[in-house]
């Protein structure tokens, strides 16, 4: 065991680099996913069928074809069509497209959950369509959607472990390296899982802080208990819904 600890200390800088790669994938993917989620979520509510139908198709396609297949398709098949992306870009695009599609359902649901009276009041006050969404509806929907987006963010972090197989040196890869160095599978994987657990915990704390702020902005009081809550509760919207 002391040998293991020595190997762990030796491996720390590399493990740190793995964490950086995993975070780049996670945050990059999350940023892309968020932009897509808002755009698709708003488009799914559009009155025009010309906007709604393609949106539906895109969302169902990226939810339905499996993240693993999408990632390897971008890695192996896209170059055949003349687009060669860096491994990091493949990872971010795959995670972003897949979780953007899931996220759009969260955005759509949260927009629907804003009381209809709020929409009516914006109309009675002659606020324009863009203005009403940006200033009145989205801030309220935002507070509703954060817990569900937190679930998706953790799912996305977990999905990023695939990056090892497209030649990126993320946390998952460094676990394998640690195993080779220590020749102790249990030790190295326990360390690796704890690293992922810690990352998930930190991301959850960050999202909870965002939620407290968003709730305070819509006048719902924050509770300290929510800030230090361990992990988000997955719901079928968060991880399951196909």
């Amino acid at each position, binding site marked *: 065991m002391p040998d293991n600890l020595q190997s762990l200390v030796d491996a720390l800088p590399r493990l740190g680099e793995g964490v950086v790669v995993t975070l780049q994938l996670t945050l990059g993917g999350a940023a892309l996913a968020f932009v897509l989620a808002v755009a698709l979520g708003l488009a799914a509510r559009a009155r025009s069928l010309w906007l709604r139908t393609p949106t539906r198709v895109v969302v*169902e*396609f990226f*939810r*339905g*074809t*499996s*993240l*693993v*297949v*999408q990632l*390897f*398709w971008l890695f*192996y*098949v896209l170059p*055949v*069509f003349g687009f060669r992306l860096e491994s990091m870009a493949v990872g971010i695009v795959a995670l972003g497209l897949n979780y953007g599609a899931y996220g759009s359902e969260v955005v759509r649901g949260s927009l629907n959950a804003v009381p209809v009276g709020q929409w009516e009041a914006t109309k009675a006050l002659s606020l324009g369509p863009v203005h009403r969404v940006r200033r009145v509806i989205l801030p309220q929907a935002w507070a509703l959607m954060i817990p569900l987006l937190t679930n998706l963010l*953790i799912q996305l*972090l*977990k*999905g*990023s*472990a*695939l990056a090892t*197989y497209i030649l990126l040196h993320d946390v*998952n890869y460094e*676990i394998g390296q640690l*195993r080779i160095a220590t020749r102790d*599978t*249990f030790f190295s*994987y326990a360390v*690796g*899982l704890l690293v*992922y*657990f810690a990352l*998930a*915990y930190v991301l*959850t704390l960050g999202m909870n802080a965002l939620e407290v702020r968003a709730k305070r902005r819509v006048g719902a009081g924050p509770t300290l208990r929510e800030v230090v809550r*361990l*992990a988000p*509760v*997955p*719901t*079928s919207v968060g*991880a*399951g*819904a*196909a």
Partner: protein
Amino acid sequence: MTGGLWSWEQAAAALPPILEGFRVTLVATVVGMVIAAVLGLVIALVRRSAGRWLTVPVGLFVELVRSTPLLVQLVFVYLMLPSVPALVIGCTVLGVHYATYLSEVYRAGIEAVPRGQWEAATALDLPRARVWRAVVLPQAVRNTLPGLGNYAISMFKETPYLFSISVVEMFTAAQQYGAATFDYTEALTMVGLIFLAVSYPTSLLVRRMENRLA
């Protein structure tokens, strides 16, 4: 059609191993889901009814499994138990991972059973086990069916992770075909479309069930 981007010949050649793999995919999903459904219920009941000496470690286990990658868990268990067949490990890890999700679905379903039901059962002096079996669980299961359905679809789409422990399910079959022929296009595209073709109609069914139960 040589030199084109898509070859129907390639597609035809890749299809048999993919369909072979599809059987494995289905087996993994069904077995994994059965494990998840049973274990998830056990976890939910333990976390609700047992003392702290049990709820705290179980809670920690659930958090740990739920917030770390399925992929890493698969490889971990595979390396730890070299003598166990990979498919058995695949189904079990999938099942345990999803059991942690499903325990939350059950918890929500149990909490959704109105308090009045408990109170009425207590007023009738029903034994506690009987209350669970005859009153609460039947109602809770009804509440949880759409959640179980959604997670079954989700698990189906995560079976490709089994490639990491060399279980030749549908995706692995396609990947192996691609590696052998240096042509991934047809095989990977078809696998993606098969996932879509199965999961989308199923999700419509679940949604309809959701609306009917709502």
